[in-house]
């Protein structure tokens, strides 16, 4: 069986093949490597009734909400980083405007543990969070288990647990992959590997498709091995307005502008029309931003010192 057959595809093909109406879709990337271009393609293709799972529900989630793709959100932080509010999300939750949003609220480590349970095919994952919190009272997914090992004082110890999450599809952005899907990420690596392993299907969007030899020169850098990946999409600058370590910096100005854009539904609609519906795909979005713009996000060089893996003589 050829493990490379048909894995490399366009974003349009990948979203068409792997994201269906009603799916549970995980989009991960903790500030770094946010799969924005994939979110935009989901909007273009008009997916509906999605459950979106994302630790830090930020701009791309607000955009997907505004485009009417999402009925349910599972998250541990719903805010525009440290730069302001998510207008559409707040309207949906505070006023059910234009419709309610089902919201499942966790803490960050609760989400991490849900992905760990999902990736390891466990029925639950224990964590030392939530004792005394109101979160379990609004989230029936957060439960308690008694340890079968007595505590030091002989008592029975209780610990909170969270259930696994197994998305229908996980989409992550990464710096590079080979044609088989061996994916290398550096800088902040977040929860991407676990989110991929937890999913039925996984799409990896990369800045660069590289030769097998590049990946194989540093196998420890491969955080997502080929066997976990169903599609590889080459999409340079697909993480904008977030950043890709060593490729381009974060567009902080856009983050700061989002509060005002998203506060006004008409303005948000215009933004989607111009930048998502009005572009055929991410290459057009990138071109529309212009070379001068991208020059402003360019980064210099800080190369890792190579290590020797050795070769038998």
């Amino acid at each position: 069986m050829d493990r490379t057959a048909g894995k490399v595809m366009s974003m349009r093909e990948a979203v068409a093949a792997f994201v269906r109406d009603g799916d549970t879709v995980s989009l991960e990337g903790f500030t770094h490597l946010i799969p924005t271009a994939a979110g935009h393609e989901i909007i273009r293709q008009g997916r509906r009734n999605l459950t979106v799972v994302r630790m830090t529900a930020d701009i791309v989630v607000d955009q997907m909400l505004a485009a009417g793709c999402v009925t349910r959100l599972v998250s541990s932080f719903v805010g525009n980083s440290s730069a302001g509010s998510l207008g559409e999300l707040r309207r949906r939750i505070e006023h059910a405007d234009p419709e309610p949003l089902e919201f499942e609220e966790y803490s960050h480590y609760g989400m991490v543990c849900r992905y760990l349970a999902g990736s390891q095919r466990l029925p639950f994952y224990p964590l030392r969070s939530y004792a005394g919190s109101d979160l379990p009272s609004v989230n029936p997914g957060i439960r308690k288990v008694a340890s079968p090992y007595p505590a030091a004082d002989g008592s029975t110890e209780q610990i909170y647990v969270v259930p696994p999450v197994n998305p229908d599809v996980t989409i992550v952005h990464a710096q590079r992959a080979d044609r088989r899907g061996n994916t290398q990420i550096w800088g902040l690596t977040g929860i991407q590997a676990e989110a991929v392993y937890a999913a039925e299907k996984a799409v990896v969007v990369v800045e660069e498709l590289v030769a097998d030899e590049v990946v194989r020169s540093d196998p420890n850098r491969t955080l997502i091995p080929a066997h976990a990946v169903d599609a590889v999409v080459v999409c340079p600058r697909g993480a904008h307005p977030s950043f890709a370590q060593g490729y381009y910096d974060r567009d902080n100005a856009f983050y700061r502008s989002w509060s005002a854009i998203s506060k006004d539904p008409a303005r948000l609609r215009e933004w989607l029309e111009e930048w998502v519906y009005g572009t055929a795909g991410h290459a057009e979005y990138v071109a529309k931003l212009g070379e001068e713009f991208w020059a402003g996000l360019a980064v210099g060089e800080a190369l890792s010192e190579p290590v020797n893996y050795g070769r038998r003589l």
Partner: protein
Amino acid sequence: MNEQDPETTRPATSSELLSVVASRELAGRRTVFAGIGLPTLAAELARLTVARDIEVVYESGVCGAHPSHLPETIADAVLITGAEAVVSMPTLFGSVLQGGHIDVGFLGAAQIDRWGSLNTSVIGDWDRPSVRLPGSGGAVEVMANAREVFVVMRRHTPRSFADALDFCTTPGPDRALADGIRPLGVGVTRVVTELGVLARKGVGDELRLVAVHPGVTVEQVRAATGWDLRTAASVATTAPPTPAELRLLRDDVDPDRVYLR
């Protein structure tokens, strides 16, 4: 900029005062879990003053940050390049934080109560809130696992220092114990606000006023607090930022005044 520049001789702003006061509290600590904003300023200033080799840990997975520029987020690219270690989220939350390696965690909140429990989820009812706030992030975990927690609050009002939280996102250890589980740390030990400093020793203890900033009275602080705030036997007056502290903060830590608004 040099010492003669008016920038470094004008009096401290409220942000500067908060940053300086918080930075001093880091003396002698080995690890600090810093959030973005004033906690970043405090941690970076401490690295230049009272805690020169402190390991600054960020929720994004950075351990031992040595940023070339002041980070604008907890995941800023400048925190990663040149860091001592960058770890995955399961390692950061599981081994570093829950494993008990953080001496001091910094948190902020929309509301805090006298026991140091925090609300960052909603104003109003959770089901249909009047304001939806970002939620926990990693705050639940920082509170449960850091040895102690410092809170920095720009605004000191009866609504933010609440007699009863609208929602308890992040419980202090007193609430955790009532739920039958003993957390690792003692919860909030210091709250630095625009008016002064509140302190709390640990389980069973409530926040008390221990210092007021220059020009602020005890009564002002009590009036700005939503519960009947106790005061320490003797309430100190915060030592104002020294010229050296201000110079470092303004020239080296945040020359672009990203947070020093």
